[in-house]
């Protein structure tokens, strides 16, 4: 078995991983990017719609175009990468020594590395997780799977579709199905507001007269061999089904767009601390987990709605790896806890140093209009016309803001306050 030595191993070749590998290479770290598939790119490979790169390139690109820009940069810099390579396990030997065991068609490759940047992305939630009962016929796909089938492999999954979940992925797929000639019967959403961006509700549903059933949920799937219909019910303000409001929607295809969860299989075995709000690891502002020298970025850290954030996190993690190696560990002595205040459902990172500029990613629990997003301890206050759970809040806190923090204050609270 071959053993190699690197400064940084990036696990997962989607946008976060590619950006991390590029940045780490630029920073002079001996870097290798490990990817399980036979091509780099991850999810944006199958995203033929626009909305990518608005922040990063200041252009509105398709996922595929965005990726090509990143990949061109990767090739130009001659970043090292390994395809068809699956990380079997990670052994923690010391703070600057981790052994990454990789299965490849050439044999097992073991890489001794100082740091790891974990960017394996997220998995989609499935039917049984959301408690859907009934038959178990063919014809049920997750939105991501349907997207891979249609927009990479050119397969049509079905022709009469019901979509469960109104997050952006579900909305995008509603339009895809409609454009390719399928009949999209409805998009079912359990909350009283859509999960995705309003722009997508417009250009994916309204444009195609696809009904959006808010405050509804699917009760069961019916079908002998293939899906024949779904039974849908209205829910009350506690999201409980209202008796007597069940009705059937005949269909042959059910698309599940019911949420993503960070996929952390290999890291879980290392005893990583998970934040139940994000489903991802707890991290400091360098995006380092509780395991020294192990960093996480992209959807494996927190579910992002824009690829630009995933890319930014990849770069931040690479910078963190550099600081880690140079200082034999992250040098911060006094961490400040980032607490969730009013209407904040999740926030990343979980602890900050106050010694440098830091980016905060957050999501609200409930939609609100005309609010202030604030951190009282820093005197930080930002007006927003509207906050929605589906839209990640991005804040950059400058180092000088932290000077307002009292010497004995060890936390900052992010909260949303009505005007």
């Amino acid at each position, binding site marked *: 078995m071959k053993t190699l030595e690197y400064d940084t191993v990036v696990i997962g070749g989607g946008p976060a991983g590619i950006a991390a590998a590029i940045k780490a290479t630029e920073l002079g770290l001996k870097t290798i990017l490990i990817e399980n598939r036979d*091509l780099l790119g991850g999810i944006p*490979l199958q995203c*033929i*719609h*626009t*909305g990518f790169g*608005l922040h990063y390139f200041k252009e*509105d690109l*398709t996922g*595929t*175009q965005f990726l*090509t820009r990143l990949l061109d940069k990767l090739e130009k810099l001659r970043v090292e990468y390994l395809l068809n390579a699956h990380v079997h396990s990670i052994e923690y030997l010391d703070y600057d020594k981790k052994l990454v065991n990789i299965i490849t068609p050439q044999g097992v490759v073991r890489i001794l590395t100082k740091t790891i940047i974990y960017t394996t992305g997220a998995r989609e939630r499935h039917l049984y997780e959301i408690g859907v009962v009934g038959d178990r016929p063919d014809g049920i796909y997750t939105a991501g799977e349907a997207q891979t089938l*249609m*927009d*990479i*492999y*050119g397969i049509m999954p079905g022709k009469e579709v019901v979509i469960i979940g109104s997050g952006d992925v579900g909305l995008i797929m509603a339009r*895809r199905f409609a*454009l*390719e*000639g399928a009949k999209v019967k409805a998009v079912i959403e359990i909350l009283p507001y859509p999960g995705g*961006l*309003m*722009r997508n*509700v*417009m*250009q994916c549903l309204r*444009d195609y007269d696809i009904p959006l059933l808010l405050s509804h949920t699917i009760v069961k799937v019916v079908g002998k061999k293939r899906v024949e219909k779904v039974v849908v019910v209205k829910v009350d303000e506690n999201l409980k089904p209202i008796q007597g409001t069940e009705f059937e929607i005949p269909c042959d295809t059910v698309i599940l767009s019911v949420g993503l969860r960070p996929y952390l299989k290999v890291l879980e075995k290392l005893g990583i601390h998970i934040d139940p709000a994000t489903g991802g690891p707890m991290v400091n502002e360098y995006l380092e987990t509780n395991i020294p020298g192990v960093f996480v970025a992209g959807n494996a850290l927190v579910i992002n*709605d*824009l690829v630009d954030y995933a890319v930014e996190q990849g770069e931040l993690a690479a910078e963190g790896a550099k600081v880690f190696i140079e200082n034999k560990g992250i040098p911060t002595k006094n961490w400040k806890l980032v607490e969730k205040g009013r209407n904040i459902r999740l926030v990343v990172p979980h602890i900050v140093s106050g010694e440098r500029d830091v980016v905060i990613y957050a999501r609200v629990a409930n939609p609100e209009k005309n609010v202030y997003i604030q951190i009282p301890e820093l005197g930080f206050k930002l007006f927003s*016309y509207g906050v929605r759970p589906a*839209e990640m809040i991005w804040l950059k806190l400058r180092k000088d803001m932290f000077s307002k923090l009292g010497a004995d204050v060890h936390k900052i609270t992010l909260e949303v306050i009505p005007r």
Partner: protein
Amino acid sequence: MSKEQELICIICPASCTLKVTVEDNKVVKVEGYLCPRGVEFAKNEISNPVRYVMSVVKVKGGDLPTVSVVTRNPVHKSCIWQVMEALAKVEVEAPLEIGDVIIKDICGTDIIATRRVKKIWYY
């Protein structure tokens, strides 16, 4: 006779809710936008609603069996189906670069590739 209408702008993820005042089929006032593109959008949406059409097209001899495509410019909403029908009839050959023209001159614009497809040789 002026009429007020509510529109959601689709230009960027901000999805601003625009309040548009229309007089004699002309937009006279737009409110609620975060940037000037919203005003442009509102004006167009009332008189000449357009959309980018994004889909895939079958590919022969490439590392993937499809290439993603988009209309170079947005087309009139009523034209969407014409574009889709045309795309269904096409099969292109690898290799393809981003920007390659797949169909020329349909609904006043071209269809261009948005994904790179490498050529695969089979033995």
